[in-house]
């Protein structure tokens, strides 16, 4: 017994000839079909090239446009020739001109002999396939496709739509259950003969001539009528990408292909010299009875498709610039924004860095310069501390920072005195955890030794900005995790909110806060607010502070602060 190969070729004839010779010299008959659209001179040269080989035949030629009946007709004719001329052939494998044998034919023959009477052909019912491009599964069998999908996509689509609307359906011949699968199969002589000599073949052929992509369904469907034992998988290693075109193998896949233990791979770049040299050399292949194991290659290509369709979250670059809402995460990692905390607490930044084990920046959007952690003038990724560069494109600045530091949680201070252009981004970003103590900006003013009219002016400015911020943050479009307290609420019970914030940054730490940050001395703050009022300004964002000395209640606790989500 031996294995015969039917090869469908339309390009890269040097490589096809090389592979055909390789097979025939190992005692495998080869029948080659060359697309009729190939030029006569090229065809002549190809046949001349292989003229000396006893076990190579050329099949009658058909024009093989992608997805049309020609491919099936070519396969039928070549297979008939194979069965007629080579009676010793017990299995027939369908291959293409860009297939590359990865293991010696003897191993393939032994593998097939160990599984007698088995047809290796991927054959899946239309309900269960997930790979079809364009959403056409069963409709491949029930609609008509007179227009080329490649050349007249518009007409193709319109005609499909029209048929759907009209409710047109072709009748599937009785007894046929449509199946789909890889074009590359390996059938036993018995099954193949039974398909080709089926009493109803003329009827089937007539039907499949109008099916879309019949090369993926003709044998896959008919084999179900005749076979006794089907292994629904292909012995040819081949992978399709998200556009439905095959992935290509190059020289650098050599080790992967070696370790895959597959028998044949498709499709190989014709100029992958190293692959052809390695796998077509006489002593290639050292595996014994290994099962094909394409897992690694599967994963490689699956990752490639995922990169192409989903991309890396939070990355903005020359070939990935998602439209709003299509980012698949607007930024690379969760981060925290604190407004008012460093005004209220004297050592908030160092405290937070220690308590949560995170990177804490100052006001990244400060008007004068970017206050990176530790006062650096540049940061990860060579980000500059220039305010002008940052404000030129604040969104790029922030997404760059988060991309460059992925793996390390970033926290930064924000406030009404900072550049406000980034706020719309922050509020839309679900990765942002924003905590705001409204009115806390008044604390540094209260402690500053400035002229009171200046303080009053600045207070009015900051209050106006923060009021606008708060309005923005209450919009329904906000996706960030948001907490807002008024200053009065917060100072009443600072530990609970701080604990909540830390728990959210480090959900698994489960530690109780032992050390609190040092709160600024607020003695006289109420009087300060009253002074502002007396000067005609109305401070509202701080909440209610009595005009007395210490705003912190000494007796009562009112429980958890109000949480705004």
């Amino acid at each position, binding site marked *: 017994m031996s294995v015969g190969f039917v090869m469908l070729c339309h390009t890269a004839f040097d490589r096809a000839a090389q592979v055909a010779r390789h097979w025939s010299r190992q005692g495998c008959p080869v029948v080659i079909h060359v697309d009729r659209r190939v030029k006569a001179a090229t065809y002549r040269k190809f046949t001349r090239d292989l003229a000396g080989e006893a076990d190579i035949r050329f099949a009658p030629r058909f024009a093989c446009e992608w997805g049309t009946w020609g491919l099936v007709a070519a396969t039928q004719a070549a297979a008939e020739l194979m069965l007629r001329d080579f009676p010793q052939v017990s299995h027939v494998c369908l291959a293409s001109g860009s297939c590359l044998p990865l293991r010696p034919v003897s191993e393939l023959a032994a593998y097939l002999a160990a599984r007698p009477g088995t047809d290796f052909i991927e054959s899946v019912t239309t309900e269960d396939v997930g790979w079809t491009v364009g959403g056409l599964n069963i409709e491949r069998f029930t609609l008509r496709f007179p227009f080329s999908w490649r050349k007249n996509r518009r007409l193709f689509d319109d005609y499909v739509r029209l048929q759907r609307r009209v409710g047109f359906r072709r009748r599937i011949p009785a007894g046929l259950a449509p199946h789909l699968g890889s074009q590359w199969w390996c059938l036993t002589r018995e099954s193949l003969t039974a398909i080709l000599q089926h009493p109803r073949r003329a009827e089937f052929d007539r039907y499949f001539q109008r099916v879309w992509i019949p090369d993926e369904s003709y044998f896959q469907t008919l084999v179900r009528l005749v076979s006794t034992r089907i292994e629904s998988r292909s012995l040819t290693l081949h992978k399709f*990408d*998200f*556009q439905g*075109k095959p*992935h*290509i193998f*190059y*020289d*650098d896949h050599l080790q992967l292909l070696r370790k895959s233990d597959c028998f044949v791979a498709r499709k190989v*770049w014709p*100029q992958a010299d190293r692959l052809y040299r390695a796998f077509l050399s006489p002593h290639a292949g050292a595996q014994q009875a290994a099962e094909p194991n394409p897992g690694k290659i599967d994963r*490689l*290509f699956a*990752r*490639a*498709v995922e*990169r*192409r*369709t*989903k*991309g*890396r979250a939070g*990355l*903005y*670059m*020359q*070939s*990935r*610039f*998602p*439209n709003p809402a*299509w*980012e*698949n995460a607007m930024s690379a990692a969760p981060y925290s924004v604190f407004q008012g905390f460093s005004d209220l607490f004297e050592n908030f930044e160092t405290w937070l860095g220690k308590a949560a084990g995170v990177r804490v920046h100052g006001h990244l959007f400060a008007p004068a310069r970017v206050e990176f952690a530790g006062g650096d003038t*540049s*940061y*990860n*990724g*060579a*980000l*500059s501390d*220039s305010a*002008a*560069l940052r404000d*030129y*494109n604040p969104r*790029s*600045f922030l997404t*760059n920072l988060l*991309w*460059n530091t992925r793996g390390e949680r970033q926290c930064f201070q924000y406030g009404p005195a900072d550049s406000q252009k980034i706020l719309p981004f922050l509020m839309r970003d679900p990765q942002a955890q924003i905590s705001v103590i409204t009115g806390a900006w008044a604390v540094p003013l209260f402690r500053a030794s400035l002229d009171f009219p200046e303080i009053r002016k600045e207070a009015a400015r900051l209050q106006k900005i923060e009021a606008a911020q708060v309005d923005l943050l209450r919009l329904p479009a906000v996706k960030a995790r948001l907490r807002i307290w008024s200053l009065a609420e917060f100072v009443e019970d600072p530990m609970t909110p701080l604990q909540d914030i830390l728990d959210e940054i480090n959900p698994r730490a489960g530690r109780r806060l032992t050390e609190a940050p040092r709160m600024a001395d607020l003695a006289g703050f109420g009087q300060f607010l009253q002074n502002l009022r007396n000067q005609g300004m109305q401070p509202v964002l701080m909440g209610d502070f009595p005009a007395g000395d210490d705003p912190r209640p000494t007796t009562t606790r009112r429980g958890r602060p109000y949480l705004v989500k």
Partner: protein
Amino acid sequence: MGILSTYGLRLARKRWRIRAFRKRRELAPMVSRVGDIRPGAILLFSTLRNEKIRLPYFLQYYRALGINHFLIVDNGSDDGSREYLAEQPDVSLWTTGASYKRARFGVDWLNWLQMRHGHGHWTLVVDPDEFFVYPFCDTRPLRALTDWLVASSIKSFPAMLLDMYPRGPISAQPYREGQDPFEIASWFDSGNYAITRNSRYGNLWIQGGPRARVFFPDLPERAPALNKIPLVKWHRDYAYVSSTHMLLPRGLNLVYDEWGGEKASGVLLHAKFIDTFAAKAEEEMTRGQHYAASHEYRAYRDGLQASPDLWCKWSEKYINWRQLEILGLMSKGNWA
């Protein structure tokens, strides 16, 4: 995109092509070997002036990638570049003494040569200090990329300009002819690039890197554009609009994915900042032939005098394309 603006772009494209056609008279063929160009050859187009010291490595690099023919415009070199190029068996050379600026920084000349000789070929348009890096470039020749692009129905391939610089003053290490410039300028900025979309042409506008960081910290809008689309399956109706930053028709500028995925992209390593730079900047200042009234070079000159070191402690040392891929500067897309 309305009908009017589409039509406006069509007119603009025609105008650039007519302009290129008119500028053809400025080019005098010096050595033409265009008869050697076979169907399917990959062509490189470049325009240069006084780059003799860079040329040996430049040609060697691109020959190794698989460029079949070089079509070069020499803009009045007097350092032997012209003679050197004329001797090369795979170079066709045109010379011109006309204004670089008035040829829109060489774009008109190259548009004409591409129209004339690039039709149906993959064409790579680069300067002599730009070195194309693409996914798998260490194991797969350029032909593998272009074959894959054809199979994927992709007509243009982006490669952002990545400014490379040495550690220490730019002029500290002398560059030898034939040397790999990235032995000296082996550092780059990995993550400080600002991106916006250009709604008229549909391309991305990328600025940043060491030039923005050091020379334009106060005038970011003046920082040079880094987005480039140097590799195109050329058609005679195409035209580059401004350098290789963008093309018409605008569909060719859509080299980025808008739905969250990543398309494949490469990088142009920019070997501008080696010791030849100071002299070049000085020369360009006096010639005044560069973009935006040589504003860039003026900034360089001032910057170079103040602080000639582009290196900072966050600079990244170049290893290979995989590093650039991981850093997110380029992508394999679905090429595996």
